[in-house]
């Protein structure tokens, strides 16, 4: 599928060591964090500098070769997979270029690992707010492409709220800066449109991201519930009461048990049907009153116990269990499908009940660990992917869960993206005209459709749109 001689030409740019073609070398690039998809790239190219990255994209443009940008490959929608085309790995570009403490921003290369940035700015009392649970591995480039979220995005906003500017190279090799460090730019909000474009609009070469001052005071609470329903009702009540926690996470019993059986054991009550991990932060004055209001809402909904972390170590331990929950679940079985959907927050009790029912009917174990405060569900299912019958049941359960979320007025993804996995749902959420508008936007950035082809918008929609320009009026 790739033109002859490309491998050698790429090697001239990045060095032969950084062009991978042997099946053994390519293996690591055939999947991302979501099981069930395997796409074999023709080759992987790993530029070591920004100039090399630009030269690679320009070479691919001259040779008209399709390619897929890739960061750490932790994505959960199959977004970084390349089928017979080129993978452009950005993880060697991992320098922090500038830290501006006064203006509270940093300029980073796309391969910088999310947690490394927070660590680097910690001495200044700052951090990078978007904190996906994969933050010890995922890259800022991948975060920008997915508009990643995390537990603290409830109060602090998702990736797009923290990106001031991006320098990107478009598929045709043009380098352009979107946004600006001053926040104001002329013209359309192309920066806003770019964030979350899943590697289809351009390759991020550097990102200027906002840094957030560490809060003066923090209180972390663990509330223990006898039923999922009571935890869901507590969540709805906290949000409806106008309290704005920094984070509000839910874990159900299968998740709690997986965590407690792992090296990340956090002291969660294994007999609880669900726990809420709630963090409040801000000015010290008045914070304890807010803690009391949240605790009151939990108790009123039926919480058996609400405890506040007594020390920073205690707090870290409570968070560790949550952040490593996917990993802990992954150890329970050979495969784990991590899912993502969003519902209105008042619908949490009934949709969670529906998910429980679907799990029972399909004979699968659904582990819920999610950003409850945003209504952002992660109904995950551990299973044995080598058992075709079980795999089929898991797939059926997932489809039914997505249908339930759509029916509740929700969305099929809050932070993991469409990739290839959620493509079938797009026509359920959007009309052909809207999908056509998305295709037209993509065509502004990449008219040849060479970047991450076949992702995000079903091919059919784009093709129909391209075939019928008259319909545009």
């Amino acid at each position, binding site marked *: 599928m790739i033109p002859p001689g490309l491998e050698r030409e790429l090697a001239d740019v990045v060095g032969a060591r950084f062009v991978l073609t042997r099946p053994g070398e390519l293996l690591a690039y055939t999947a991302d964090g979501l099981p069930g998809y395997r796409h074999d790239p023709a080759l992987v190219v790993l530029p070591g500098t920004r100039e090399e990255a630009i030269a690679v994209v320009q070479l691919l443009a001259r040779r008209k070769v399709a390619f897929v940008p890739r960061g750490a490959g932790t994505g959960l929608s199959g977004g970084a997979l390349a089928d017979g085309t080129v993978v452009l790995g950005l993880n060697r570009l991992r320098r922090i270029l500038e830290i501006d403490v006064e203006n509270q921003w940093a300029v980073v290369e796309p391969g910088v690992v999310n947690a490394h940035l927070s660590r680097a700015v910690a001495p200044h009392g700052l951090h990078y707010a978007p904190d996906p649970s994969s933050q010890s591995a995922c890259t800022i480039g991948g975060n920008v492409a997915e508009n990643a979220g995390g537990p603290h995005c409830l109060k602090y906003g998702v990736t797009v709220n923290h990106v001031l500017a991006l320098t990107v190279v478009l598929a045709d090799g043009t380098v352009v800066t979107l946004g600006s460090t001053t926040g104001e730019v002329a013209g359309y909000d192309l920066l806003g449109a770019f964030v979350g474009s899943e590697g289809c609009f351009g390759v991020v070469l550097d990102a200027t991201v906002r840094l957030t001052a560490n809060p003066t005071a923090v209180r972390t609470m663990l509330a223990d519930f006898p039923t999922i329903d009571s935890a869901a009702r507590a969540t709805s009540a906290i949000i409806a009461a106008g309290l704005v926690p920094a984070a509000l996470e839910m874990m159900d019993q299968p998740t709690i048990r997986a965590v407690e059986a792992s090296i990340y054991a956090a002291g969660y009550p294994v007999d609880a049907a669900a726990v809420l991990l709630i963090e409040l932060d*801000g000015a*010290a004055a008045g914070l304890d009153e807010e803690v009391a209001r949240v605790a009151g809402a939990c108790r009123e909904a039926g919480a058996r116990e609400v405890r506040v972390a007594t020390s920073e170590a205690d707090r870290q331990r409570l968070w560790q269990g949550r952040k490593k929950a996917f990993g802990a679940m992954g150890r329970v079985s050979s495969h784990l499908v991590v899912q993502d959907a969003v519902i*209105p927050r008042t619908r949490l009790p009934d949709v969670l009940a529906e998910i429980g029912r679907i799990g029972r009917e399909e004979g699968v174990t659904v582990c819920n660990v999610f950003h409850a405060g945003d209504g952002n569900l992660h109904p995950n299912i551990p299973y044995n992917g080598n058992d075709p019958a079980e795999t089929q049941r898991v797939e059926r359960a997932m489809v039914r869960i997505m249908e339930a979320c759509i029916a509740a007025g929700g969305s099929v993804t809050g932070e993991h993206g469409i990739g290839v996995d959620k493509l079938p749902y797009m026509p359920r959420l*959007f009309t052909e005209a809207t999908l056509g508008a998305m295709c037209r936007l993509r065509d502004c950035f990449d008219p040849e459709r060479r970047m991450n082809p076949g992702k995000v918008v079903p091919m059919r929609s784009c093709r129909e749109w391209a075939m019928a320009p008259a319909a545009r009026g």
Partner: protein
Amino acid sequence: MMTRAERGARIIESGGGPAVHHAPSTERELIDLLQGAGPHVTFRIRGAGTWASVTERIRADATLDLSRLSGITEYVPGDLTLTARAGTTLADIAEATRANGQWLPLDPWGAPTGTLGATLATASTGPLAATLGLPRDAALGLSLVDAAGVRTTAGGRVVKNVAGFDLVRLQVGACGTLGILTEATVRLRPLPAVDRSCAIPLPAAQSDLTALLVSLRQIPLSPLAMEALNPALAACAGLPPAQMLLVRVGGSHPAVAQAVEALARHPHTTEIPSSAWPVLSASEPADAMSVRYSVRPSQWPSLWITVCAASDASARVHGTPSRGVVRVVGPAETQHRVQQAVAPLGAVEIAEPAGRGVTGVPALAELGRRVRDAFDPQRRLNPGVMDDGRS
């Protein structure tokens, strides 16, 4: 060389308004109207028409008045989301949400009778944007009718959503040139339990100004808004005609009390009623011609001092230190003088509204043109607006 404001003014020459005026009361009517009109008929889009200096000057064959397409269509207080038709006024939304202890913290300059559709379409911001976010952050979902009269949507009704490419952010701030907003779902916030404001006189020397801003960062509670006013604007807010910094803090009773106490330690600080804020916004002159400048926040004191020195006493100047923004409302001569004074600072300059599309970067101009071509190839909607003057 022409200033951007002048280039903008040339693009949108003031003409007599178009004779044809349509005021559809349903989305269907709007669609029929667009589909029924010939492909070369152009439209200027109008909400409540409060920002007359913009809407009145757009030269087009017909006016599309969205003010009758109004009303809140869904409001679930427990979800902190609200859906309303584009012609709904910000005042109506404020009233409906206040009853539930919530608000939509969009406070654009101008009258509260401005519409939701126009505020999102123009991405208009006010002092609250510094902490509570921009219009693009408030918008969760949109319904639109495009230039060909085809209905599309963007986003959804939930507070977190990455399904598909982000048409919401593309449309917010596009000034109606990529589609007519007919309905929007927005994210609400809980109203702060206590909301208090103080006015602090601004020192004249740059080093003192910088020191004041640094010391204000130490307030334990981050303010809801912090806006600097020149003497002309301070007078509009009922304050002594001097350079003032208005600081608004909101939150729980103890936290706000402590913050106000910290503010009061600055000499000559006075507490002012929070009702000063809407008075200030509404004082915007109807024929306002405005230019916004922005720099890195650390450069803000020098931008502020430069702009204030270059503008005459009647011009209104205000600025948001944390966003690095200073906005000047005044006649062309003032704008010209300010522009020359500011040039050495390398500020980003945005002349409202026509100059918004004018960028000096060819690659960006090219992307902007492609976007416009993709959504409104005939330039039927708000012709002239957002263009760079060449297409």
